[in-house]
């Protein structure tokens, strides 16, 4: 049974937490390529994946957020995109085992179609290369995430739908504006994002990153206002980091995020997980909160 069927059966599911900030804790140097660790330090990557499974996540992501050829080329690794993505998916598959799901991460390329940096064909080809390799490595779903532009997100969703048999998730990153509404940096609102990515073929939509769980509740309400039935996933940051003694600390504790989980589910969220600053302890607390709702 895939993620979509489980949601359709009425279950609220739990996803995983942060990867990037977790890799840094394990010693990833600032400015180094996180995805290269899939090849160079696979045991550390596996340990992260396994820690979220142990925390009770129903699904985990992969260390492939920046593994498009456009991002990898900053590190001279564009030619290894296929290898890195396959390894990323294989590591998470190994941790997930047969019963949990691997929803493979695909982040933005950093290129803007609007500026003529790249053509739509070039972006589509890069996403196709990435998603095909992720499926070959063992991913059963593709999670297109942290998107802000509709055109780029839709190309990634289409590349996944047209070239793999994976279920496709798509989440955007919204910020609260001075006018008290939610927009991506490209100006896209949740109500505009939903129909566009659903039309491109996304099975599951949602939001990730951002400023804490409280605001995700408003964002989900807006998504629900335009679509009643599509499964909705939230990967929330543990708030915005504050600098304490030269180190960044994310303010929301596991208990804070668990306390807000019922409201997030009531607003219409089907899958709850974390983004930057969340840890296995956050996911374990969210798991307990979800189990308490489901009874």
């Amino acid at each position, binding site marked *: 049974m895939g993620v979509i069927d489980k949601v359709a059966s009425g279950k609220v599911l739990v996803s995983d937490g942060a990867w990037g900030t977790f890799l840094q804790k394990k010693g990833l140097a*600032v400015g180094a390529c996180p995805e290269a660790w899939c090849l160079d330090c696979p045991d550390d990557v596996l340990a992260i994946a396994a820690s979220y499974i142990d925390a009770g996540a129903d699904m985990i992501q992969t260390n492939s957020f920046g593994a498009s050829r456009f991002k990898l080329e900053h590190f001279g690794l564009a030619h290894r995109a296929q290898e890195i993505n396959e390894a990323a998916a294989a590591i998470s598959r190994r941790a997930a085992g047969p019963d949990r799901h691997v929803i493979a991460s695909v982040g933005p390329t950093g290129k803007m179609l609007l500026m003529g940096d790249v053509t739509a064909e070039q972006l589509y080809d890069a996403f196709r290369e990435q998603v095909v390799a992720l499926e070959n490595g063992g991913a059963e779903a593709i999670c297109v995430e942290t998107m802000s532009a509709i055109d780029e997100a839709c190309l990634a969703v289409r590349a996944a739908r047209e070239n793999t048999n994976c279920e496709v998730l798509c989440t955007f990153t919204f910020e609260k504006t001075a006018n008290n509404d939610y927009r991506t940096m490209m100006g896209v609102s949740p109500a505009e994002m939903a129909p566009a990515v659903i039309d491109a073929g996304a099975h599951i939509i949602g939001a990730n990153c951002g400023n804490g769980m409280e605001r995700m509740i408003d964002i989900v309400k807006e998504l629900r206002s335009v679509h009643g039935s599509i499964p909705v996933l939230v990967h929330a940051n543990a708030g915005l980091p504050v600098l304490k003694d030269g180190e960044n600390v994310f303010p929301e504790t596991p208990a804070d995020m668990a306390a807000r989980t019922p409201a997030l589910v009531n607003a219409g969220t089907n899958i709850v997980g974390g983004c930057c600053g969340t840890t296995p302890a956050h996911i374990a607390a969210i798991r307990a909160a979800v189990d308490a709702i489901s009874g």
Partner: protein
Amino acid sequence: MSEILEQIATCVERGKINAASPYPPDMKGQEGADELTRKAIDGGTAPTDILEKALVVGMQKIGEKFAANKVFVPDVLMAAKSMNAAMAHLRPFFQSGEVKRKGVFCIGTVQGDLHDIGKNLVSMIVEGGGWEVVDLGVDVSTEKFIEAVEQHPGCAVGLSALLTTTMINMEKTVKALKEKTPGTKVLIGGAPLTQEFCTKIGADCYSADPQGAVEYLNKLAA
């Protein structure tokens, strides 16, 4: 203000590059910043007036709207493209010294950080504010920032960071700049930054949006 200067300012603000550009849809087929600037120069308008009374005005309007979340990244990018089309006609006058800018602003994304969208937005708005901008790119080391200040004595410096992990590198660069080139004004910006962080690391200005950076720089030049 003459009519053509107002038209150019509007083209910059709305992101109308040239007659061939389909954007914005309601100005389709009309002349853009490119053609109108050429016309203005050929008609005898002073290039300094084109910079100060058209380009700066248009970019200031879009910068203010961006700061108020009334427009978003794509709108600023289109405005900058249209400003660049006009700037191309002014370049000979910069080179001859006929048109003077307010000063030099060297900007880069700090070491370990490859994100350039925020840095580019600030570059565009500051250039549109009448400054000469030297873009040092991404992943810029402290040494490269110092080198840039030595090449452009008296310039102001902008440091950008998107990541919570790289913003911490700013402190080192700010300290080194203040030590090697005392008096250099350092501006910092980026999503995870705050005024508190700016004060703590000894930088001179933090702004949440590009417009705040221009306003600070303009005060320095005044």
